[in-house]
């Protein structure tokens, strides 16, 4: 309890972290309540108001087929943010498990796993994700999977490092001598004690994943028409931006603000949860 109070106290002392937390919560609320918040159907065509500038009726203007951009930005959070969170959920759960087992098993299993991770890490990650996405064919799912693959090694390393330090702790050695299974030790001891760094890493990663998904969508490898997705909306707006500045501006701003939110929150959490950084 005092621990949480301490965390909250430190959080309240860091204005940038509070801003980050506020943005993350606000975007999640927009995502959940999209049907209530959006003034129009995001896919309703209305050729009478094509490329209308921002006004009281259409706060963010409209696109080339008269769809309301505010509604599309609101609904777009369901594609972009969900894709970001899904990416991190996949890479975090798979990576953490592999890493924990790798650290506990040691020997050639550990070596083989870690060399494979070294190879994945040796790639410039966006280039690998882009190539994989191109190979899988353009769709939002096919953008999520490669990014999750590319990010997995980071969690493997993190969890393995934790497993290596925890392996020699008395309570883990006691568990081993009692005959506990590796799975039991991973679940009972390694995972709970690795939580803090993993939470920090995944918060920062969600920001990165949202950026990467939107970048893949922008180059045509992610979400396809008529899905409202922020990166794809910027891509569509690109052809009109010289005369209709609002078209790519608002979806792009949504990407920036959301990524800023997760990065600020992740940074703040790292300073709060990482004992090495305490008091700095």
């Amino acid at each position, binding site marked *: 309890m005092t621990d949480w109070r301490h965390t909250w106290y430190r959080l309240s002392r860091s*204005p*940038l972290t509070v801003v980050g937390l506020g943005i993350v919560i606000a975007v999640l609320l927009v995502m959940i309540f999209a049907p209530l918040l959006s003034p129009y159907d995001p896919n309703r065509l209305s050729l009478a108001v094509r490329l209308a500038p921002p006004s009281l009726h259409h706060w963010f203007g409209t696109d080339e087929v008269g769809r309301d951009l505010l509604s599309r930005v609101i609904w777009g959070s369901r594609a972009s943010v969900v894709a970001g969170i899904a990416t991190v959920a996949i890479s975090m759960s798979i990576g953490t498990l592999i890493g924990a087992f790798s650290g506990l098993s040691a020997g050639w299993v550990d070596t083989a796993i870690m*060399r*494979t991770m*070294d*190879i*994945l890490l*040796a*790639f*410039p*990650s*966006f*280039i*690998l994700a*882009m*190539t*994989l996405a*191109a*190979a*899988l*064919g353009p769709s939002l799912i096919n953008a999520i999977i490669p990014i999750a693959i590319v990010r997995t090694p980071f969690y493997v390393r993190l969890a393995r490092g934790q497993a290596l330090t925890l392996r020699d702790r008395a309570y883990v050695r006691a568990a081993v001598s009692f005959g506990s299974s590796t799975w039991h030790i991973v679940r009972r001891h390694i995972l709970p004690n690795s939580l803090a760094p993993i939470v920090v890493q995944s918060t920062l990663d969600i*920001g990165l994943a949202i*950026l990467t998904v*939107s*970048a893949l969508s*922008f*180059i*045509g*490898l992610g979400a396809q028409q008529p899905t409202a997705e922020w*990166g794809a909306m*910027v*891509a569509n707006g*690109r052809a009109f*931006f*010289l005369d209709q*500045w609002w078209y*790519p*501006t608002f979806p*792009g*701003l949504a*990407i*920036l603000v959301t*990524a*800023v939110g*997760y*990065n*600020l929150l992740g*940074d703040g959490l790292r300073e709060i949860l990482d004992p090495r950084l305490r008091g*700095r």
Partner: protein
Amino acid sequence: MSLLHIVRRRLLLAIVVVFGVIVVTFIVSRLIPGDPARLMAGEHASRETVQHMRHVLGLDRPLPVQFAVYLDKLVHGDLGVSIRTERPVSEDIRRFFPATIELSLAALLFAVAAGVPLGVLSAVFKDTWVDQAARAVSVIGISMPAFWLALLLLDFFYNWLGILPGTGRLDEGMAAPPAVTGMFTVDALLAGQWQTLRSALVHLALPGFTLGFVILGIIMRQIRSAMIEVLQEDYIRTARASGLSSSRIIFGHALRNALIPSVTMLGLTFGDLLYGAVLTETIFAWPGMGNYVIQSISFLDFPSIMGFAVIASLAYVLINLAVDLTYMLLDPQIREIG
């Protein structure tokens, strides 16, 4: 462990990684949907023509054989022929790479010139408003969708103010300087063509800034945390106690030591530069590798995509190897034990 031993281990790892990178790119290239033989033969080609094309491309042979052929060609610098441009991919890469290198170097120069002072300021004035402001800039840089920033800058400086050119590397109709490095700014300088140099620099401004802004935050963050670490060291306290001026302590002692661990990060930023280049080049119609690969993707031009991926990844591995070795030689703690 001696220095030689550490270096040898690092080199061995690099060899394993290079081989792994080649295997992975090969596997990925064979996953690509759509039949490259059909694409090359054309839409209305007969079955026999497609079959013939498949044979010419070697796609009818078993995978291990295809891999051996691929490896052999790679060693000899043969990356296949681009389906889109119908030129050898290696020639295309030679043609487009200098533009990307030039753009990346300009971006790196800008990012270091702005990121290092920001990082130092942020560390020295830790927890003040200066620090908060510098960190805000860094977070915005890290969170910025490069393709969107590029569009905004293009709209503002080219469309609205009209003071900077929008696309390309030189003014329309201007001849490229005599090719030495392939980087127009350097070549123009070498040839003494001041008009061309000016044009090349002006064209570099917007894409260079966009790409630099993306990595500025990473550099600033690294310098900040390294500086904070160093500023707590005993020798800094000793230097303070012996009455040295703040600026001498910060620049003479602290920054020099903070730069050493930051060197390793420079290799990693190369990955971010590639990522940014792909997005930035398409918007500014910058004729580099990023632009090339995006066009190849929309064309399902698998030899080009694969060629780019393999060359970019190998370059990334080698740059990081070079950086790590430099770091080992620079860092007294590692050098001493050698």
